[in-house]
C-alpha cells in the first residue's frame, strides 16, 4: 500500500477579528494530521490563532476560461460604487 497522502489547503486566521486566509497546501493522511502539519509548516512564527484545513479535492474552482461571463457583467455597473455619485461640497456626513 503506497497511496500518496491527499492534498489539503490550509487557511489561517492571523488574529482574532480577521478572516481565515489561504496560505498554502500540504499533504496529510487525515484531517487531524493536516492540522498538526499545518501548525508546523505555516505557523512557526506566531502567524495564526486558528487553522482550517480542507481537502483540495473538495474545492470547486471557477475556470480561467469563464472569466469573461463571470466577471465582465460587474464592470458596467459602476453605480455600485459610492464614488459614482458626486456629492455637493456643502453637503456633509454623506
Amino acid at each position, binding site marked *: 500500500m503506497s*497511496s*500518496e497522502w491527499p*492534498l489539503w489547503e490550509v487557511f489561517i486566521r492571523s488574529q482574532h477579528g480577521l478572516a481565515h486566509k489561504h496560505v498554502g*497546501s*500540504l499533504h496529510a493522511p*487525515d484531517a487531524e494530521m493536516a492540522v498538526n502539519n499545518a501548525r508546523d509548516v505555516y505557523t*512557526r*512564527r506566531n502567524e495564526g490563532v486558528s487553522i*482550517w484545513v480542507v481537502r483540495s479535492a473538495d474545492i470547486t474552482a471557477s475556470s*480561467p476560461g469563464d472569466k469573461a461571463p463571470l466577471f465582465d457583467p460587474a464592470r458596467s455597473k459602476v453605480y455600485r460604487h459610492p464614488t459614482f455619485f458626486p456629492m455637493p461640497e456643502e453637503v456633509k456626513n454623506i
Partner: protein
Amino acid sequence: MYAQMVDTGAKRVRAAEEMDADERAFQERIDRGVKIEPKDFMPEHYRKTLIRQISQHAHSEIVGQLPEGNWVTRAPTLKRKAILLAKIQDEAGHGLYLYSAAETLGISRDQMLADLHSGKAKYSSIFNYPTLSWADIGAIGWLVDGAAIMNQIPLCRCSFGPYARAMTRVCKEESFHQRQGYDIMIALCRGTPEQKAMAQDALNRWWWPVVMMFGPPDEQSVHSAQSAQWKIKLFSNDELRQRFVDQTVPQAEYLGLSIPDQALKWNAQRGHYDFGQPDWNEFFEVIKGNGPCNRDRLATRVKAAADGAWFREALVAHAAKHQAPQAQKAA
C-alpha cells in the same frame, strides 16, 4: 544557485512572430507583469522547466538540512542548538512550500521524491560539501544562505504565481538564517585565536563552492535567455555573483577574515570588486555526482524515506479506518 543550469528545452529564444496565438498571448501577459496561475494556459516547455526548477529548489532545501544536521548534537550551547534546530525546521518548511508550488504544475509529490532518490533530479552543488567544524555552520548561514537570498528575492517577482508566493514566504524567513550564521562567525572571531582560525578555515573551504553556487557564466546560455524571457530567472548568474561578492567582502573585513582569492581587488572604475574564477571542473564534477558527499547525502535521504515508509502507510491505514466519524466543525 539552489536551482542550477535548468534545462528549458529551448534551442534558441523565439521571436513573437514565430509563436502561435496562445503562446504569444502568454508571452505578452508575462511582459505586462501579469502572473501566470496553474489553470492558465502555458506552453509545455514553460511548465516542464518550472517543474525542474522548483523541484530542484525544493530538493536543495531538503538535502540542505543534512550538512547542518551533522552539528545538532554537537552545537556548543543549548541556545545554539535550539537555534540550529529552528533553522533546520525552516529548511524543511521551505522544501514543503516549494513542493506544493511544483505540484500545481501537475507533478505528484511522490514522483518528485522518486526522481530525487533515483538521482534523476538534481539539488544544489553546495550541499555536497562536508561540515567539518562548528564554524562551518556559521559559514553556511552567512555565505550559503546569503547567496540563496540574493537569488530568491528577485524570484518573489517571477512570473509563476505559486512559485512567487512560496518565495515570498521563504525570503521572510531566510534572513534569520543568514544572521544566525554571521552571529556564529562574530562569536568565533571575537574568541580565542584557535576559534578565529576555525572561522578562517571554514571561510577558506566554503568560499569557492559558494561562488560556484550561482552557476557557470551564463551570457551564452540559451536556457538562461529563455528563462529570462519567461521571467523565471531575473538576473544572470554573473550579475548575482558580482552582487554577492560586493556585499560579502566588507562583511569578511568586519570579521577580520580574509577571502581566499588572490585576484580579489576593488575596482574603483567599475565600482565593483574584481575577483577570480572558481574551478569550474570541480563544479561540473559535483553536479555529475562526484563531489565529496554526493553519495552520502543521497543515501541518507533514501534511507530516511525507506525507514519511514511503514509509518506513513500506517497513518493512511489509520485514516481509512476512522474516515466515517471525522466531521469536525469549522471554528
